[in-house]
């Protein structure tokens, strides 16, 4: 594999990370909550799709459309039961509550589905296996293109939503000043619930991609969370497009690291993450911009 190929593969990998990270970024941007159960929710989404595929034999992509309303409802429930309460308490509470939730989701999945590793790559059909040989050292996979395109579309749609629609303005207003938002008639609780539902839906999309491009098991959640979080931080917390770029950067770092030694893949990402922390947070506080 040449460097160029590694970078291209890294971009494809990074697009996947960006989708995973998107929901995390939304929840942080709007509610200042880092949902430690985010990765597990993505994995839960993968399992929901899996169950539908097993039951009906439809393509995972179609199954996702069916799974989406389920995940959205779960997102609303999550907000109304756990996150709503934890917003009122201290800063630590959402972290602790979502950490507990993470453990619960992982182990409920373990009970229901056993530790077996699964994948939906086969059921996804030709898209998983097709690729084009661009040059002798560079191949481009259909799945990679699909994920990249979807990632850009998702971020683009979100950007449009936030900048052009009233619902989007309401979300930004609530993110910037929830108290003032209430004063002008915006139901902040409703906004938060919508943000969570959105985050969960996109997380589920990430889960779908995880299931198709790779394997998953009940305990895969934390790994996805870490990568998603790294993407958000590398791109700059509170910046939507930053999350996309952060994801791409993370993906490229990992594939370049793998060039040196396959075992260095995740480690390279961690090192990039830590390096960004040193550079960005060296010397005092950084003010957080709100999601745009």
């Amino acid at each position: 594999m040449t460097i160029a190929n590694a970078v291209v593969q890294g971009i494809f990998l990074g697009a996947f990370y960006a989708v995973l990270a998107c929901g995390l970024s939304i929840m942080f941007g709007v509610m200042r909550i880092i949902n430690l159960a985010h990765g597990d929710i993505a994995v839960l989404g993968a399992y929901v799709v899996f169950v539908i595929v097993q039951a009906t034999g439809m393509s995972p992509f179609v199954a996702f459309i069916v799974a989406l309303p389920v995940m959205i409802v779960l997102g609303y429930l999550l907000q109304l039961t756990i996150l709503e309460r934890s917003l009122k308490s201290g800063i630590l509470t959402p972290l602790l509550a979502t950490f507990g939730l993470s453990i619960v989701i992982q182990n409920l999945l373990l009970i229901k589905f056993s530790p077996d590793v699964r994948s939906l790559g086969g059921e996804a059909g030709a898209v998983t296996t097709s690729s084009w040989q661009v040059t002798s050292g560079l191949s481009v996979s259909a799945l990679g293109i699909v994920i990249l395109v979807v990632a850009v579309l998702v971020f683009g749609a979100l950007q449009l939503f936030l900048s052009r629609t009233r619902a989007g303005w309401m979300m930004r207003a609530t993110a910037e000043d929830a108290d003032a938002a209430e004063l002008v008639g915006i139901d902040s609780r409703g906004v938060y619930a919508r943000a969570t539902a959105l985050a969960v839906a996109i997380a589920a999309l990430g889960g779908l991609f995880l299931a198709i491009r790779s394997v998953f098991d009940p305990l895969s959640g934390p790994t996805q969370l870490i990568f998603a979080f790294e993407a958000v931080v590398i791109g700059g917390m509170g910046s939507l497009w930053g999350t996309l770029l952060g994801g791409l950067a993370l993906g490229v770092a990992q594939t370049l690291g793998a060039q040196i030694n396959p075992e260095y893949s995740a480690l390279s990402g961690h090192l990039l993450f830590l390096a960004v922390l040193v550079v960005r947070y060296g010397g005092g506080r950084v003010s957080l911009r709100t999601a745009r």
Partner: protein
Amino acid sequence: MRVQRWTRTSRVFTGATVAIAVLLATVPLVFESDVVQKLTNLLILVLLAAMWNALAGYGGLLSVGQQAFIGIGAYGTIFFAGLGVSPYPAMVLAMLVAGVISIPISFLALRLRAAQFAIGMWVIAEAISILVRLDQNLGAGTGISLIQLNQYAPNFRQAYTFWLALAFTVIFLAALFFLLRSPLGVSLQAIRDDEDAARSLGVRVAARKRLLFILAGFGCGAAGVLIGANTLFIEPGSIFSVQWSAYMIFMVLVGGLGTFEGPILGAILLFWIQTTFTQGGPWYLVGLGATAALFALALPRGIWGTIEERLGLRLLPVGYRVVAGKGEERTA
């Protein structure tokens, strides 16, 4: 009106605590080896809970990555034992190494706030875990045993490990106790209550947090050392697992975040749960996770914290009480 540190209750209780420690020292002489091992586990839990509470309860630092130091402690022992150091001195050395490593880590990690700190620590733990996994001398991904311990007969080994655990637990609890009673400790409680207000009063918040972080580094390293010694076989997947953080969070949240006695109560509770539901497995973890979340949402002060609040009770003299003079209003 007087400011009082020692109440009659706390006098009695501190005396009782010292007595308990002395009593515990006799455990290996009285009980069977497997009981001793279980009690060693209890001590490890107490130590972990106390350290996590030191970070989160007194420093406001929620770390989901203390397993980094647990792993360093365990693997450090293997490393030094491999160099020919006698096992138990190797353990002490490994504990020291874990603590020392926490110093440079603190300069990075403490720059982060809240959630970034939490996950940042987790990433650091993962990174260290990967580095260990890559080292063939340390058993790589499959794990390794502290075979040097085989030179001791099982009974003796268990006893020595227990005494080391007792020593570590007493030392770290005592360190925390005296820290909290010192002027430093008061400023720590101020930081916990309102960081910005404390800073505006001149409290050097950053230095205090660093101190707690390093203490927890030593303490979690000590716990890791003991875990390795108590279980004989360690592998990166489990010693660096975020599950240790889950246990710590459970113990401290349920016991009482920010209280001295709470984590000890939480550790005893977790120990009881672990020994009763020996199958362990997913249901037990579901219960732990759900309980931790419930406490975070509904009973944030934990069992002990709530008791303390309701009854104004404090068993160990780590705070101050304002005692009313005649006819004066009593302040909290």
